[in-house]
């Protein structure tokens, strides 16, 4: 089993009309054994920037701690929050630093940039950025997620419809992957508010 599949994960982010949504599954496993069903994969960097980390749980936690540290320093120096594009470049640089001994993580970054324009991107474990205008996926269920998102996504969805779409895409994809699932965690972010919801899907 690959080290990326050790803990199991599923992550997806989608762009809507002046909003974005980012969702993850909740399973923490050790290969085929489930340890917990409330594992946090999506972290808030600031009110308009969220980071999802799929892959090895330990490296996800280490990477998150390093990135929060860097962002806090940035906030102290610049007296403002980081733009999502800047943050994505930071993540990419930190991952490439470990080019020959990488973090076994695939991050998904989602945020509202200048003029509250939604920004999403993903990258591989050594920091190769992949910007997208519609959706990005990561994790052990990524192949199913690609299919589900491609068929369910339409551009310029309002936040209610975006929530429904991303939830259905996530739940149907993790049902085809034994290493991810046990519910879902969805954040829908508009310029004025952040809504966090827990989904109950097939608990198996």
């Amino acid at each position, binding site marked *: 089993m690959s080290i990326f599949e050790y803990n199991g994960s599923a992550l997806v982010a989608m762009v809507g009309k002046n909003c974005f949504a980012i969702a993850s599954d909740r399973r923490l496993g050790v290969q085929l054994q489930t*340890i917990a069903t409330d594992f946090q994969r999506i972290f808030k960097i600031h009110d308009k920037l969220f980071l999802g980390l799929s892959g090895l*749980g*330990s490296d996800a936690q280490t990477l998150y701690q390093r990135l929060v540290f860097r962002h806090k320093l940035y906030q102290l120096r610049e007296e403002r929050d980081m733009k999502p594009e800047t943050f994505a470049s930071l993540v990419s640089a930190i991952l490439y630093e470990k080019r020959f001994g990488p973090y076994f993580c695939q991050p998904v970054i989602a945020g509202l940039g200048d003029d509250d324009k939604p920004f999403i991107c993903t990258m591989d474990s050594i920091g190769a950025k992949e910007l997208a205008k519609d959706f990005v996926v990561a994790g052990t269920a990524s192949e199913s997620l690609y299919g589900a998102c491609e068929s369910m996504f339409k551009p310029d969805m309002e936040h209610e419809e975006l929530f429904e779409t991303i939830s259905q895409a996530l739940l149907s994809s993790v049902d085809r992957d034994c290493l991810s699932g046990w519910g879902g965690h969805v954040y829908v972010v508009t310029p004025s508010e952040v809504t966090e919801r827990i989904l109950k899907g097939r608990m198996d």
Partner: protein
Amino acid sequence: MECVFGMVGKRFALVVADTSAVNSILVHKSNEDKIMVLDSHKLMGASGEAGDRAQFTEYVQKNVALYHFRNGIPLTTKAAANFMRGELATALRKNPYMVNIVLAGYEKETGPSLYFIDYIATLHKVEKAAFGYGSYFSLAMMDRHYHPDMTVEEAIKLAEQCIEEIRSRLVVAPQNFVIKIVDKDGAREHSWRRTTKD
């Protein structure tokens, strides 16, 4: 075949571990204490490579004590768990500690807590945790019978059921188990479940 498991009850937390020290087919001793008392209100049950286990648990215990001496207040369970995770993560890509840890602690403000720490430094706060081959049996038993806010009697009974399951279903089951408990009165040994005297 090391078995460590733990659970959180109402205002206490419990850690159970087997007490066998094994080298290949030989049982060196069957009263090896694998649950270290970190400080007055923390228990650290560890399983894995024997040398790493002893070294790492002692290292953590001394550092927890050092923090207390330097700062005058003890570490919280969460802080101790994160310290352990940090040490494991730093060592992971150099000279990894092959130790899995169940950390139980009690604070007056936050009550009892239990942390699952993998040897790859995955940290998660849980209500029940188990490591080793015994985890297949004890986790399943706990999934069935555990409920939040159990009394000490109920938790001990559940621990006994887990031990019985391990004894009857694990091919090379450990002979003796020790149960340690941590609550507002501190961390202490609760009882043993023996099949052999040592």
